[in-house]
């Protein structure tokens, strides 16, 4: 499908990039024009994404909207992009969250606005590029290119310890990814030795077979590079720092989409390329993931800073998703994919709500609030709704995802799953006690007496998120149906290995 002679998928990926250059060329005094241009480009991208979704055929096997161009043919590097339901769902999540986060920054960002919105648009291009690329080299370029805008978003517009946090974020991710690059090159070379074809195409990487220590090195390079992104337990320390210091929009994008890139990496690259090793090490990864659920939930419980609490809850939720993916059970995997979307929606919404209250009170300490239900009823409604969705209340989206993950992974790892359920219990404890501290009881602080409730701009970006929570929660079938074909495919990578082992 083409628009003006360009493949629609390329428009979807590079429209924000065009927006980036347009933003750079606007004089910085025209602040309103800057904001609306950024919003215009992100909404336009979302519209293109919706067109893609409408014409997407969920019952076709494999990738759709494939666009191919020779790039560095002498090394087998090509520009290949395409979508299947997994990558399309995550790209749409990004396309949805970008305009929302732009809209949420209209009043919050005062300095260097034009660069702020420009970086967000550049981030959108690189994130959608990560999900769409079907060439390992291209994927790596997008994967790393995403660091630069995020680095500036946290470092320039962040809080007090922004420089420390952004350096930590950058170096953590880059150092882990460099080893993945080495692994990619090794895989490429072994494929070339086996078949004589130089190709970085993903489908060729699926065919490569390597053994022994090299295989182990490559597997662990992928495992660790993505584990930093998710993040899985011992590698998570960058995340609370980055979240606390990041401006609202960056937090929303970070929690909403960037963390999913790690899980996506597992599903798209690590597991299909190394099915046997993945199967062998999945129990250990799951142990770390579940330890992360418990540890992060306990950490969230004791946080005094609202944003830090949500950051830790995010680590816990991601651990659950990894457990689902690593259980290699169809039900759990479909739950994990759905939960990725859910987590993007509800944690994104939580960070937006924290941003809203922070703009009014300039503090995120729970002890500074109390009784604000009376002054901000609508804000309280959205906050409580989102908390319940994040806890996993039946009828809201979080429940469906978590339920499917638990049902599926119980078959593979019964004990681990039982431990992981405690994470849900803990999340109810810390979320509800935070809600109680913030909204109920008497108003203890004078500053809280005259807070303004949500304004129209804030209503506009909260409603779609709230609608998603209800929609997925009450009628998840259309969403789950989209993933069926993908999951059959995904299961086929593993099941052949299982049969071989038996």
């Amino acid at each position, binding site marked *: 499908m083409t628009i003006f002679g360009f493949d629609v998928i390329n428009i979807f990926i590079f429209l924000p990039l065009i927006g980036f250059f347009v933003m750079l060329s606007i004089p910085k005094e025209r602040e309103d024009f800057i904001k609306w241009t950024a919003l215009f480009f992100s909404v336009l991208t979302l519209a293109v994404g919706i067109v893609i979704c409408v014409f997407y055929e969920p019952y076709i096997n494999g990738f759709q909207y494939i666009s191919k161009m*020779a*790039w*560095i*043919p*002498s*090394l087998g590097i090509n520009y290949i992009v395409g979508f299947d339901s997994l990558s399309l769902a995550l790209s749409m999540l990004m396309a949805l969250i970008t305009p929302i986060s732009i809209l949420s920054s209209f009043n919050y960002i005062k300095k*260097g606005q034009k*660069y702020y919105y420009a970086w967000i648009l550049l981030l959108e291009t690189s994130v959608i590029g990560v999900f769409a690329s079907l060439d390992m080299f291209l994927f*790596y*370029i997008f994967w*790393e*290119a995403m*660091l*630069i805008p995020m*680095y*500036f978003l946290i*470092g*320039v517009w962040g809080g007090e310890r*922004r*420089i420390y946090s*952004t*350096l930590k974020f*950058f*170096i953590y991710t*880059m*150092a882990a990814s*460099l*080893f993945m*690059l*080495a692994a990619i*090159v*090794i895989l*490429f*070379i072994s494929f070339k030795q086996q078949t004589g074809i130089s190709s970085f195409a993903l489908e060729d990487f699926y065919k490569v077979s390597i053994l022994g220590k090299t295989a182990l090195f490559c597997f662990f390079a992928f495992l660790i590079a993505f584990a930093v992104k998710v993040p899985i337990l011992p590698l998570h320390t960058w995340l609370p720092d980055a979240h606390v210091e990041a401006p609202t929009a960056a937090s929303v994008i970070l929690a909403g989409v960037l963390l999913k890139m790690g899980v996506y990496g597992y599903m798209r690259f690590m597991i299909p390329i190394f099915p046997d090793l993945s199967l062998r090490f999945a129990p250990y990864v799951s142990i770390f993931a579940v330890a992360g659920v418990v540890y992060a939930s306990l950490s969230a419980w004791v946080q005094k800073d609202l944003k830090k609490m949500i950051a830790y809850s995010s680590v816990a939720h991601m651990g659950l998703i990894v457990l689902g993916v690593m259980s290699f059970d169809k039900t759990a995997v479909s739950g994990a994919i759905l939960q990725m979307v859910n987590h993007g929606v509800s944690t994104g919404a939580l960070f937006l709500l924290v941003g809203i209250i922070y703009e009014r009170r300039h503090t995120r300490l729970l002890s500074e609030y109390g009784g604000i239900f009376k002054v901000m009823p609508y804000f309280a409604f959205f906050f409580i709704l989102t908390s319940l969705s994040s806890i996993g209340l039946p009828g809201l989206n979080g429940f469906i995802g978590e339920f499917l993950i638990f049902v599926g992974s119980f078959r593979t790892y019964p004990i681990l799953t039982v431990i992981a359920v405690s994470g849900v219990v803990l999340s109810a404890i810390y979320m509800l006690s935070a809600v109680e501290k913030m909204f109920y009881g008497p108003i203890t602080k004078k500053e809280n007496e005259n807070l303004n409730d949500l304004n129209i701009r804030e209503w506009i970006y909260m409603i779609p998120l709230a609608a998603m929570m209800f929609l997925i929660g009450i009628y998840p079938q259309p969403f789950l149906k989209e993933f069926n074909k993908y999951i059959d495919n995904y299961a086929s990578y593993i099941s052949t290995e299982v049969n071989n082992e038996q």
Partner: protein
Amino acid sequence: MNNEAFMFFSVLSPYILVALGAGVSLISWLYFKDRANYKVTSYGALIFLISAIAFLFSWSAAYGNLPSLSLNASPAISLILATILILAIFSIISSSSRIKEPSVKAGEYYFLLLSATLGAMFMVSAKDVLTAFISLELLSMSIYSLSGITGRDAAAEASLKYFLLGSFASIFMAMGIALVYGSAGSLSYEKINQFITINGGADKILLTGILMLLIGFLFKIALMPFHFWTPDVYEGAPTQVTAFMASVVKIAGIAAMLNLFITSNDLRLTYITAFFASITMLFANMMALPQKNIKRMLAYSSVSHAGYLILGFLIFERWPVFFYLLTYSMAVFGAFTIVVLLEKKETGLEIKELNGLFSNHPVLSFAMAIFLFSLAGVPPLSGFFGKFYLFYAAIKAGWIWPVIIAVISSGISLYYYLGVIVAMFMKEGGDETQNKISVNGNFTVLVMAATTLLLGFFSQPLIDILKH
């Protein structure tokens, strides 16, 4: 004109033009005497350099059909020569504002710059050791004098230090050449390499000669542990000259060394180079970490890049090294040019002086970020492509452990590159008395930034040229 003579002139024409340019700028300076006329001299030098680039295209007739010169001509070499000439052109353009200072003697400056360029060009295309050595001396002599051209104490010290240590290295090379000639009986790279392959192992004299040559070269390209002059000289020399040193001199040294050593597959030599490359990458990056002066930091960074480049000697292809040289030289030249534009005294710029630069000079800050990200090898900038091709080729040739060290040291290097970006974009401050940025300086920086940004995306055509 018969065919032989035509070929002869078409190959020599770029060199002749640069030599003429050097002479003309010296003479025009004597003739005009008036300092206000430095512009005439600089335009003259520019015209000669630009026409030299134009004449490089006439080489296409001579490829594969060379007259009996001890010079190579191939598409790859013309691209490298064009890069050297372009960098020389931009050295003249970006320094035009600084030349007005009375202490700088414009005529000598342009003369020395052009003769250094000439030396670098000969070094890249030399086919025998003696030509390479003489052109290296031409290059070095010009650079020694250029480092001290302002006549200030720091510059004079840098110049003297560089001269003393440099002549020591030259003595090593001369001795090495004598030994090599004594045992191999020829000076041409090809013959020497044939000789090494046939009976290199047994011939101790040849091996000693080769090692002495290697040491001389390693000194010139500042590989550890022969790098001690680099930070002092880079810091003391006028920054325009430092930019030239870090880019052009490195291109010339690496290319000459590559031509000499690439075809010899003597295992001991490859182990030595792998060892030097590894310690250079690791330690130069560590030593750059605590630097507070940007010129010193970039000096250590350029030492570390020599280490990455030397990795290319372990593989049997030239193009990854050439490609890396292109991306590296553009980025480092641009970074030093920014230092030229911003520094208030000539010994450089403290990193903390860059605090808040972004609010005063957004374009320069963006450009600097591009250069530094590229030097650090962050995709999608061209430095990443350079590193990728180099590492890829090294892994393909079976050298895994040097690549692992290279990857680790790239990780280390991120920290100090990011430190500069942090200062520019994320810290407050910066005084109001910023230098006025000349149009020429801005133009240079923009061209270098655009090249650094785009070179990687268009690597296929470049690879096609560099492979031949």
